[in-house]
Every structure is written in structure tokens, then in C-alpha cells.
């Protein structure tokens, strides 16, 4: 079961409590085993979350020590400044476009190829390896560097287009196309959802197909009545998580644009903007406010996804 599935089960369990209380014979041992994680949770996750929420209401400069010189409380000042800044909204818009285009395209491609690859196709493992490799390398700086050259003015893509007499632009340097090159890079890493879809397809009981065949269901019918419904929890799971992660993309936008988010802020993904505000302009209070806004946005997208899932995700249990 996926992490989302686990959460769903836990939430249900919490609601239907009422049976005999669970016994806790292993308290001491368990908390000893959990000690490193619990310390990490407090020091590096829970504590910092509270702190960044607080800092988002202060004027905190990176160069001052918060202990020797506590940052000034400025209320909603950072949020007001953020919402009044057209560069912020540009970055927000760029990111939302990036997420809403590249995530669905990546998942559709992964799903289609998973359906083709399923059921003992000859050469399955070779295809799978080839499709999977880019998603392991895709997060690295080297690949982003490669991308700059593939989509450059004299790059690989234009060399290919030249065969057809097309004189392509410098994709990386063009405000209308630069974001597209990063989206293509994202889609190029469709191998990881592909693997998950393949695993999901394997879990569909053969029995269902046999029964449907005996009843005379056509291939099309079997696909839409068995394969697709039983795959919807996995599609949903991939969709939720890929959206969460795509919102946080940084490396590719940074390297492809040489750290500037250019041309013309066309590739200024949210995290890149946040990095520039916090670590280049030293405005950590504003960067904290941006981080919390991001959490709210991602949370809203996730909640919307869960709400929408009622209408299309089918659970077999």
C-alpha cells in the first residue's frame, strides 16, 4: 500500500475506534528505537516549521544572528509585500503552468507506455530500463547542462529540425519557449510513474479478466470496466505526489536559466524565486512567508485532488 493509502486507512481507523484499547507492551523499547527519528522530527521538522511560521511575520535578515539580535515583528508585512509584488505573481503563475502542464502529460505518457509494456511483452525489461534511466539521472545538474545544449540555438533539436528546413529558435533563450524546455525535461522522467503503473497492473487479479471473458466482454469493455477502474487509485496517488513534488522543482530551472530564472523571468519557478529572495537578497522573513504560502497552495491542490477523487477514484475494498 502506498503512503497515501496508509494515511487513508489510519484516518478511517481513527474514526471507527470503539473496540478494545490496544495494549502497549513495547513502549520502552519502541521509543528507544524511535529516538533518532523523534529527535530529527523535533529539531529538523516540527521546530523549524514553527520557527519559519514565526519568522514569516518578522523582518529577518540572513546576515544577522537571530539569537544575538532577534528579528523585528512586522505582522503581515511580508505577506503584504509579497502579494503586492508582480514578480512574485509572475513566479507563481510560471510554477502553476509548469505543474499543470508537465505533471498530467508525464502521467499520461507513463500510463500509456505501462499499458503497452504490461503482460510479458518481449524485451519488456530492456524497454523498462531505457525508460527508467532518465528519471534516475533527470534530477542531476549534468542533465540540466545537457538540456541547455539540446535546446540551444545550435543545439541538437535545431539540428534535427534543420533536416526539414525549419530554422528553430534558441529555445532556452526565448521567453516563450524556455519554460517548455523544462517541462519537456520533466516529462522525459516519466520512468518512475511508469514503474508504479506497471506494478499496479500486476496487482489486478487475473480472475477478473477470465470472468469477464467468459461473460463475453470485449477487450475494450474489459479495459474500461476492469483495468482502468482498478488502476485509478494508483493514478490518483501518482497525481497527488507528482504535483506536490513538481511545485518544489529547483535544480532544472536553476541550471537551465543559469540561476537567473530568465529569460525575462520565464523560468522563475517558485523555489528558485524563494532561493533568490532568501539567499541572494538575504530577506529570510519574506522567504519564510513565501514558504508558508507554498505550503498552503500545495495543501489546497492536494485537498482539491482528494475532493475530486470521490468522483473518479475507485477503491476495491
Amino acid at each position, binding site marked *: 500500500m502506498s503512503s497515501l493509502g496508509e494515511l487513508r486507512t489510519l484516518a478511517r481507523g481513527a474514526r471507527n475506534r470503539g473496540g478494545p484499547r*490496544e495494549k502497549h*507492551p513495547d513502549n520502552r523499547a519502541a521509543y528507544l528505537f524511535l529516538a533518532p527519528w523523534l529527535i530529527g522530527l523535533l529539531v529538523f521538522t516540527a521546530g523549524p516549521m514553527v*520557527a519559519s511560521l514565526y519568522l514569516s511575520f518578522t523582518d529577518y535578515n540572513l546576515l544577522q544572528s537571530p539569537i544575538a539580535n532577534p528579528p523585528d515583528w512586522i505582522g503581515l508585512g511580508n505577506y503584504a509585500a509579497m502579494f503586492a509584488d508582480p514578480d512574485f505573481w509572475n513566479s507563481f503563475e510560471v510554477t502553476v503552468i509548469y505543474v499543470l502542464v508537465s505533471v498530467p502529460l508525464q502521467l499520461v505518457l507513463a500510463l500509456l507506455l505501462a499499458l*503497452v509494456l504490461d503482460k510479458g511483452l518481449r524485451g519488456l525489461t530492456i524497454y523498462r530500463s531505457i525508460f527508467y534511466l532518465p528519471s534516475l539521472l533527470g534530477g542531476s545538474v549534468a542533465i540540466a547542462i545537457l538540456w541547455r545544449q539540446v535546446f540551444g540555438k545550435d543545439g541538437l533539436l535545431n539540428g534535427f529540425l534543420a533536416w526539414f528546413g525549419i530554422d528553430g529558435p534558441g529555445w532556452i533563450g526565448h521567453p516563450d519557449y524556455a519554460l517548455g524546455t523544462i517541462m519537456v525535461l520533466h516529462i522525459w522522467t516519466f520512468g518512475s510513474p511508469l514503474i508504479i503503473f506497471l506494478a499496479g497492473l500486476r496487482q489486478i487479479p*487475473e480472475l477478473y479478466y477470465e470472468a469477464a*471473458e467468459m461473460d463475453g466482454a470485449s477487450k475494450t469493455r474489459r*479495459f*474500461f470496466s476492469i483495468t482502468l477502474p482498478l488502476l485509478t487509485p494508483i493514478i490518483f496517488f501518482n497525481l497527488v505526489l507528482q504535483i506536490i513534488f513538481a511545485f518544489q522543482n529547483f535544480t532544472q530551472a536553476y541550471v537551465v536559466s543559469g540561476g537567473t530564472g530568465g529569460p525575462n523571468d520565464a523560468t522563475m519557478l517558485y523555489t528558485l524565486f524563494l532561493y533568490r529572495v532568501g539567499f541572494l537578497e538575504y530577506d529570510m522573513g519574506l522567504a519564510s512567508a513565501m514558504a508558508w504560502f507554498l505550503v498552503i497552495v500545495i495543501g489546497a491542490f492536494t485537498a482539491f485532488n482528494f475532493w475530486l477523487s470521490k468522483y473518479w477514484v475507485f477503491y476495491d475494498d
Partner: protein
Amino acid sequence: MTTETNNVAPATASATASASDEVSAAAPRRSSAKRSPRDRWLSVGKHAGLILVSIIMIYPLVWLVVSSLKPNEDIFRDLSIFTTNLTFENYVNGWNDLSHPFSTFLLNSTIISVASIIGNLFACSLAAYAFARLKFAGRNLLFAIMLMTIMLPFQVTLIPQFTIFKELGWLNTFLPLIVPKFLAVDAFFIFLMVQFIRALPKELFEAARIDGAGQLRIFLQVTLPLMIPALATTAIFTFIWTWSDFFGPLIYLRLPETFPVSVALKGFIDVQSSSDFGSMFAMSVVSLLPLFIVFLIGQRYLIKGFATTGMK
């Protein structure tokens, strides 16, 4: 964020309704006794399509490798991957092109990666054992919290974490990148191991219990040896993610002698006044090589680990 998704009208997933072409691909699971000519043509078409997609996927990588072996002036003059004029010159130049020899950066990346692997194996396996095998107060709540931290955007803890490490005087050391691993901050691996331990036969643990083994012994002598595949998956993923990590080193490491390969490679973009693309390509290949080797060796564990946890 919970849902009650019981009685859902099946299959209204319009997003994938365009999959009609693939319908035939999904359905025929039984090995049909005889293959009609139509099936054969379908199969040929399918493979042709898959091979085409494979070439598109892999071509940029092949081009990168070939270009790194071409003389600099040939790289963009002739974009083809078929050439006889090959040289290792770019590797020699690129190795010494930056402020330090590339071996420095490779060593830094190796130190960070190996330490991260040890940290993750240590801390995540301990936590996973508790979640999977022990009964304790607050287990469900903590488990839910653990799952949620996997999905938490890192930006929201970033600035206080940076402040902590800065106040500790750990900037320009590897500690900010390593210490969190020893405290199981990569909770994804806890989840991966929990899934694995849960699937082990319960009888083994009960037998050890009856023999009077304490939890530490059961963990060390029964659980760990059995969960080697999960540990391997963790080690491989940790390696790939740490080796590729760019954001962490970018903010915590400012001195060139502390750079890992990811940040060092950035140097080629910063100084690209000359047009030494060959060196940049060559060192890019060098930086990808460890990932590629790990992929080849560990593919089995990667795919298995991915499939069982559904990746996060």
C-alpha cells in the same frame, strides 16, 4: 486530508479515456494459442513505436557521451553521433578546468553520499522496526505524522534549518548534509522499510521472542539480515539522490574545495565565456557515470523498491 471514497462510480477517469489505442494492449493477458496475422502486425507496430520512444529517450544521453569525445570545434558543427574523430582531450582539460582538480569534487560527493547512506541505514531501520513490529502508545499518530513529513514541502523548514546550521558554525562543512540523515529526516526510507518488514513472516519474530531474545537482538539478528533487500534499495536511492543533490550543497557550501560534483559542474556554466563545451560535457559524463553504474548494478532493487512503496 481524508476522504471517504467508498461508492464511486467506476471509470470516469476522462483523463485517460484517450487510451483507446492501448485497449488491446492491456487486455489480452492469456497467451492466445494461435497468433493471427493481425496480432503479428499489431506486435510489430507496438515494438516499432516502443523502439522509437526508446531512441528519443536515450538519444540526448548518447549525444552527450559522443560529444564529450569530440574535438571542441566539432561538437556543434556536426551534431551527429557517428564520427571517427574521437579524442580524450576534453577529459584531460575538463579535469583541471575548474579551481580544483575534478577529483576533489568527486571525493567530496563520495564522502557526503557514503555518510548519508550510513545515516539512513542506521536511523531509518531503527524507526522502521519500531513502527512495523512494536506495539506502543501513540503508534498510529506518530506513523501518520511520519507519512505526512514525506510529503511536506522542504521550503517550510529550510530557513530555520539553515539558521541552526549557521549558528552552529557548520557552514562550509558537510555536517548540514549528513547529520539530518542520522536522525531519519528522509522518512521515505522508514516507510519503505516498514512495508518490507511487515511482509516478513510473523512466525520468525514470535520464535525469537519465545527463545527469550530482547527487542535489540531480534532487530539485529533476525530483522536486519532478512531486510537486506530493503537496505540495498535504501542505499541505492540514497546514493542517487545525494549524488544529484544540488540545493543543499548550493546553500551550505560556499568554498570551492568543499563542492560536490553537482555544484562544481555549475562552475562550467558560470565561466562559459570561452566555448569549452567539450570540457563541460566530459565532466558531465564523469558526474553521471557513478549514477549509471549504480543503476546497472542496482536496477533490480530500484524497481522493486519503487514498486512496493509506490515511491513515497
